C-alpha cells in the first residue's frame, strides 16, 4: 500500500539576482515519487540537489508551489491536516545539537507527546518505549550534550518515535557522525523498518544505500532515477553524471567480474568479497 505520494511537486526558494531583483531558485521541480508502506527507501544525491527540500515537503514544513504531496491520504497543503500529517511522519535532521529542546534526555523525548496533549502516564510509557527501541534507556536522565553524536541522533530518533509515526524520515541524519555513529543510527533505522516502520533515508553516503529496498537518485531538483540499489550501482553513466559513486567494494566486484573472475558482482561486504577472491586464486593459477 502506498503511504506517501508526491505528484509532480515543485518548490522554489526566493533568490536575489545580481541586479537586486528577486528571482527564484529551484528547490525541487516536477518530482513524482511514490513510497510504499513498510519500505526502506533511500534518497541520494549531491549537495544542493533538493533532497532536504523534498524531505521538508513530506511533513508539510514546506508546501509545494505546484503539484501535490499526499501523506496517508491527506493533502499537505490543507492547513487542517498539518498536525495529523506530522503525527504520521517523524523527522530527524542533520545537526543533533540543533534539534534538542530540553537539557535532559527523557524530557526531550517527551516533547512530541506533550505537544499532542497525551495524558501524563502514557507519556512516560511512550518515552520509555521510544528510548528502549533505540537502545538508550540507561541514558534517560542524562544531559544530551555530553553524549556522542550517534547517541544524540538516536535520542532524536526516539523523540520522533514518541509521536508514534508511520514514517520516519532521516534527513542527512548521518552526515555529521563518525563511522561508528553512522552504523548505530543505521542499525536502529533498519531494526525499526523490520518492525514495520516506513523509513526514508536521505544521504550522500552510497554505502548506506546498500540495504535499502529502493533508491531514488536526485539531481538538480528532480528525481533522475529510481530502482533497487544494484540497478542504480550498475548504472555507471548515471552515477557519474550526478557526481556519485557506487561503494568501493561494488566497484571492485564489478571490475573483477568483467575481468572473468568468479565473484558475485553485487558483493558489498569487503570480507565476503575477499573470501570469494581467495576461492578464485586456484583458478587463476
Amino acid at each position, binding site marked *: 500500500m502506498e503511504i506517501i505520494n508526491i505528484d509532480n511537486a515543485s518548490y522554489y526558494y526566493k533568490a536575489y539576482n545580481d541586479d537586486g531583483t528577486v528571482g527564484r531558485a529551484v528547490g525541487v521541480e516536477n518530482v513524482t515519487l511514490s513510497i510504499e508502506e513498510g519500505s526502506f527507501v533511500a534518497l541520494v544525491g549531491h549537495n544542493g540537489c533538493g533532497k532536504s527540500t523534498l524531505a521538508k515537503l513530506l511533513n508539510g514544513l514546506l508546501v509545494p508551489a505546484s503539484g501535490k504531496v499526499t501523506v496517508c491520504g491527506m493533502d499537505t497543503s490543507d492547513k487542517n491536516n498539518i498536525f495529523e500529517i506530522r503525527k504520521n511522519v517523524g523527522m530527524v535532521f542533520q545537526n543533533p545539537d540543533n*534539534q534538542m529542546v*530540553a537539557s535532559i534526555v527523557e524530557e526531550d523525548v517527551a516533547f512530541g507527546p506533550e505537544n499532542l496533549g497525551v495524558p501524563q502516564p502514557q507519556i512516560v510509557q511512550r518515552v520509555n518505549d521510544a528510548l528502549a527501541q533505540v537502545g538508550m534507556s540507561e541514558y534517560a536522565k542524562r544531559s544530551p550534550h555530553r553524549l556522542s553524536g550517534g547517541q544524540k541522533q538516536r535520542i532524536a530518533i526516539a523523540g520522533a518515535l514518541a509521536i508514534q509515526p508511520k514514517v520516519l524520515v532521516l534527513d542527512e541524519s548521518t552526515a555529521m557522525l563518525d563511522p561508528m555513529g553512522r552504523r548505530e543510527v543505521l542499525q536502529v533505522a533498519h531494526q525499526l523498518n523490520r518492525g514495520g516502520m516506513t523509513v526514508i533515508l536521505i544521504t550522500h553516503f552510497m554505502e548506506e544505500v546498500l540495504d535499502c529496498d529502493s533508491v531514488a537518485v536526485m539531481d538538480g531538483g528532480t528525481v533522475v532515477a529510481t530502482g533497487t540499489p544494484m540497478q542504480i550501482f550498475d548504472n555507471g553513466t548515471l552515477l557519474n553524471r550526478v557526481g556519485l559513486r557506487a561503494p568501493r567494494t561494488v566497484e571492485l566486484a564489478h571490475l573483477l567480474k568483467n575481468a572473468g573472475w568468479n565473484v558475485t558482482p553485487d558483493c558489498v561486504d569487503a570480507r565476503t568479497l575477499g573470501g570469494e577472491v581467495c576461492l578464485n586464486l586456484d583458478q587463476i593459477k
Partner: protein
Amino acid sequence: MFRDVTFGQYYPADSFVHKMDARIKLVLSLLFMVGIFFVVSYVGFAVITLYLLVVIALARVPLKSVLKSVKGIIFLLLLTAIINVFFTKGAGEPLLSWWKIEIYTEGLIFASKMLLRLTYLVIGSSILTLTTTPVDLTHAVESLLKPLRVIKFPVHEFALIMSLTLSFIPSLMEETDRIIRAQKARGADFDTGGLVKRAKAFVPILIPLLVGGFRRADELANAMNSRCYEGATKRTRMRKMRLGWRDAVASVIVVVLFAAIFTVYGMQSAWGGIIWLYY
C-alpha cells in the same frame, strides 16, 4: 575560555534537594535571596553559612561546582568590595589616610559583609540551578506566573524561551570557543593592542556566532514544528509536579529560619541592605 561558568548547569544526582518540587525550591531561593539582605551581624552570617553548608550536603553537589559559580563573578565581587572600602565614611578617625584616600574600620566591615552577601547570593542561586533541571525550572516559573494569564501575559511562551535559552548555553559556548580557535588559526590577534583594537578583534567572532545563531534557531524551529509544536494549547506535561513531605519539611525549616532573621534584624536593616546594594 568559558568553561568556568556553571550558571544554568544542572548537576544530576539523587538527593533530598533534587527530589524537591521546583516551585518550592524557587520560592525558598527567592526568600533566601531577600533574607540575606536582612542579615547584618557576623553571627547571622555564621548561621547562613551553616545553612548553606547543610543545603549543599543535602543536595549532594560537590562544593567545587558550587564555588565555580563564584569564580565566574569574582571580578565583580572584588570591585564592589574595593569601592565599598574606599567610599564608606566612618564616624571616628580614619584607619589609614593617604592623599585623598581614607579607609575607615566601618568601610572594611561594610565591604566584608557586602562581599559575603553577594557571594552567598550567587551560591544560593547556583544551588537552585545545579539541583533543578532547566525544564523543571521553567515549569516552576510557568506554574508560578499562571495568574498573569489574566492580563494576557504569554506565560507559556516566556517559559519556553527561558528553557531554550538555558539549554543552548553549552552549545553556544562550544561554538564561541571553536570560532575563536578558528580565527586564531588564521592569525587573528585578540591579546595585544588598545581597548578599541581588541574590541574590533571580536567582530570576526560575533558575526559568525550571530549567523550561526540564526541558522540554529531556524533548524530548531523546524525540529519543533516536526514534533507537532503549536504553542500552549492542549499541551500536557510528562513531569508531574507534586508536593511531597520533603517540600513540607524544607519549607517549614526555611520559613522559620528566615522569619527569625526578619524578626531579629527588622525592617530597617533591610532597607539599608537594599540601599547598599545600589552603591
